[in-house]
C-alpha cells in the first residue's frame, strides 16, 4: 500500500452466496480527500461503504484505515462514522440526544456536552433545534442532524451513502455546497456514494466509477469527463458522441484513424495503446463541437452535414446533425451567443467543426 493513502482497499471481493457484489476492487484514498463512488443502482456502492464501516466483511482482500488492517475491527471500534441512506435518526430521542449519542464514553460534564452540541447545531445551521423531536424535522434537517451526529465525534473518515438522495433539487444543491464547505472546514476524509454524476462532479476531488462490482475508472472530475478510459465511463458521465473507426496508421505518438462519418482523423495521442488495423472508437462531447451555417476557417477538423432537429433551451441549444454514413445524428450543444444559428424548421445543410484535442480515442468495444 502506498504510504500517503489514508484508506487503502486492497483487492477486495465480496460474495453474497454465489453472487459477487464486489469484484477485485483496489482503491487508495488520501487524507482529507473528498472521494466519491459513482455508479448505477446495484453496482455495489453501498456494499463497499458498509465494508469500510464494518457492517460487512470482505470475502477476500483487506481494508486498511490509517495503516491498520480492519478485518478484525468491529464497527464500534473503527475510526469512521457513517451517514446512512435513511439517516437512521433515533426516533425516541430529541435532536440534542441524537447528536450527543456517541459522546457517552467520553464521560463529559453536561455543560461541556451541551456546548459541543450547540456548536454542532451552529455548524449545520440549525441553532435552537436541540429540543425538537426527531419526527418534527424535514428531510433536509434530518440529513444535517445525521451529519452532526457523526461529525461531533471527530471521525477520521466520514462515510456518506447517498445522503442527498431524498432531497428536492434546490435543497440538494444547497446541501452540496454546504457539504463541500464543511469538508474543507473540518478537513476530514469523505467517502461519498452517489448515483448522480452531476453531484459527483461538483463535489469530489476524485471519483471512482463503478459497474457490476468493479471500478471502471478512477480519476478527478475533469479527468473523467475529458479523458474517459472506456465507452461505458464516457456514456455514464455526461453525453458523448461515438464514432466507430479503424486505426489506419501509427506514427510515433500520433495515430491516424478512419472514422465513420468523420473521415480520416489524426490524433496526437498516446494514452491508448493501439496498433494498425485495430477497431477503435473516437468520441467527442456535444459542447466541443462547433456549429455554423458557413464553412468555418482555421485549424481543426470540419465536416458538412444536415441539421435535422434543434431544441432551444434558453442559455443553450441542442442540435442534431446528420452526417453521411451514420445511423445516429450527432448531438451538438451550442451556447446561444449573439451569433447563434437559427433553429431548424426544416432540414438544411450545416457545418460542424472541432479541435483535435477534444477528440477522445477509446479502445473498440
Amino acid at each position, binding site marked *: 500500500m502506498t504510504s500517503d493513502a489514508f484508506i487503502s482497499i486492497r483487492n477486495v471481493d465480496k460474495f453474497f452466496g454465489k453472487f459477487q457484489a464486489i469484484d477485485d476492487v483496489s482503491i487508495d484514498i488520501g487524507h482529507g480527500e473528498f472521494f466519491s463512488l459513482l455508479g448505477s443502482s446495484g453496482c455495489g456502492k453501498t456494499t463497499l461503504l458498509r465494508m469500510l*464501516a*464494518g*457492517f460487512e466483511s470482505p470475502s477476500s482482500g483487506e481494508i486498511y484505515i490509517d495503516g491498520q488492517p480492519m478485518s478484525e475491527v*468491529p*464497527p*464500534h*471500534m473503527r475510526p*469512521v*462514522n*457513517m451517514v*446512512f*441512506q*435513511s*439517516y*437512521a*435518526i*433515533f*426516533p*425516541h430521542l430529541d435532536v440534542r440526544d441524537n447528536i450527543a*449519542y*456517541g459522546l*457517552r*464514553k467520553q464521560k463529559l460534564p453536561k455543560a461541556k456536552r451541551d456546548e459541543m452540541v450547540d456548536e454542532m447545531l451552529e455548524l449545520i445551521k440549525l441553532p435552537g433545534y436541540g429540543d425538537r423531536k426527531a*419526527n418534527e424535522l424535514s428531510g433536509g434537517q*434530518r440529513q444535517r442532524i445525521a451529519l452532526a*451526529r*457523526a461529525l461531533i*465525534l471527530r471521525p477520521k473518515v466520514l462515510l456518506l451513502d447517498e445522503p442527498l438522495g431524498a432531497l428536492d433539487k434546490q435543497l440538494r444543491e444547497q446541501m452540496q455546497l454546504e457539504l463541500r464547505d464543511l469538508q474543507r472546514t473540518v478537513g476530514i476524509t469523505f467517502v461519498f456514494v452517489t448515483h448522480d454524476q452531476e453531484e459527483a462532479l461538483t463535489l469530489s476531488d476524485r471519483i471512482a466509477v463503478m459497474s457490476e462490482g468493479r471500478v471502471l475508472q478512477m480519476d478527478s472530475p475533469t479527468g473523467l469527463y475529458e479523458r474517459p478510459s472506456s465507452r461505458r465511463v464516457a456514456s455514464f458521465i455526461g453525453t458523448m458522441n461515438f464514432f466507430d473507426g479503424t486505426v489506419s496508421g501509427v506514427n510515433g505518438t500520433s495515430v491516424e484513424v478512419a472514422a465513420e462519418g468523420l473521415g480520416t482523423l489524426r490524433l496526437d495521442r498516446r494514452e491508448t495503446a493501439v496498433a494498425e488495423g485495430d477497431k477503435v472508437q473516437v468520441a467527442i462531447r456535444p459542447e466541443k463541437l462547433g456549429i455554423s451555417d458557413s464553412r468555418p476557417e482555421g485549424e481543426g477538423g470540419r465536416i458538412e452535414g444536415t441539421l435535422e432537429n434543434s431544441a432551444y433551451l434558453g442559455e443553450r441549444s441542442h442540435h442534431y446533425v446528420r452526417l453521411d454514413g451514420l445511423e445516429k445524428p450527432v448531438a451538438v450543444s451550442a451556447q446561444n451567443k449573439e451569433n447563434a444559428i437559427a433553429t431548424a424548421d426544416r432540414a438544411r445543410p450545416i457545418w460542424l467543426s472541432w479541435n483535435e484535442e477534444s477528440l477522445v480515442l477509446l479502445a473498440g468495444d
Partner: protein
Amino acid sequence: MSSESYIRRPNRPLQVYAIVFLIVLYVPVLFIPLFSFNDSIYVRFPLEGFTVKWYVELFHREAVWNAFMNSVKVGAVVSVLSTALGIFGAKAITRYRFPGRGPLVGFIMLPLVVPLIIFGVALLVLFSQMGVPLSLYTVTIGHMIVCLPFSIATLLPRFEGFDPSLEEASADLGENAWWTFWRVTLPMVFPGVIASLMLCFTVSFDEFIMAFFLTGTQPTLPMYIWGQLRFPQEFPSVLALSSFIIAASFAIVFVGLWINRGAHVSTIKGD
C-alpha cells in the same frame, strides 16, 4: 357527494355483524357480574335485590387473599421471565438469518394450538419422573410455556417494524452490542415490552389447566375458585371473585394494547 372516501364509508351490515359478534361473545360473561350483585345464594331470575355483601365477604377471607397473592407472585415472575425470553427470541428471529427459522417460529407458537392439557400432563409426568415436588415453581414453569408465544407474538411486530440501520447507526457511533441494546433496541420496542408484560401477567393470572396439573399445596386464584365450586353457599362469592378477575383482566389487556398501539406505523421507523 359525501366527503368520505370509498373505504371509509359506513358499512351497515358490517356494523350489525360486529355488534352481534360482541354480544354473543360477551353477554354470557356479563351474567357473572350481574349475579354477583344479587342478594341471593341462588343463581336464577328474577333478581332479588342489589347487594355488595359478597364482595365485602371476600375481603375477610384469608384463603382468598393467599390464593390471590400466589397468583400475583406467579404472574409477576412469569411475565418478567417470558418477556425477557420473548425479547431475545424476537430479536433473534428478526435480526439473524439462520436455517430452520420458519419451523422454529412455528414451534414456539405451538402452545397456542396444542391443547394445554397435553402440555400439563407432559410436564406433570416430567416433574414426577425427576422427583420435583409440585409447588408454585412448577406452576411458574408451566405458565411460561403458555405465555412465551404471547410474548413473542406481541414483540415480533415491534422488532419487524423498526429499521435495522438504527442499530447499525448505534454501533457506528461507538456503542457495542450491549449498549446498543439498552440505548436503542429496548427503547424502540418498549411499548411492546409493556404490552407483553401485561398480557403474560393476565394469561398467567387466569390460567387454570396448567395450574390444575402442576399446583402443589398452594392454590392460585383460579384453583381456589375451582375448589369453592363444590360448596353451593359459596357460589355468590365465587361470582364476585370472578367478576373482579374479569374486570382486572380487561383493564390490563386494554391498557397493554393501548400502549402497544401502532406497532407497525412510521413513528417507530428510522425515517
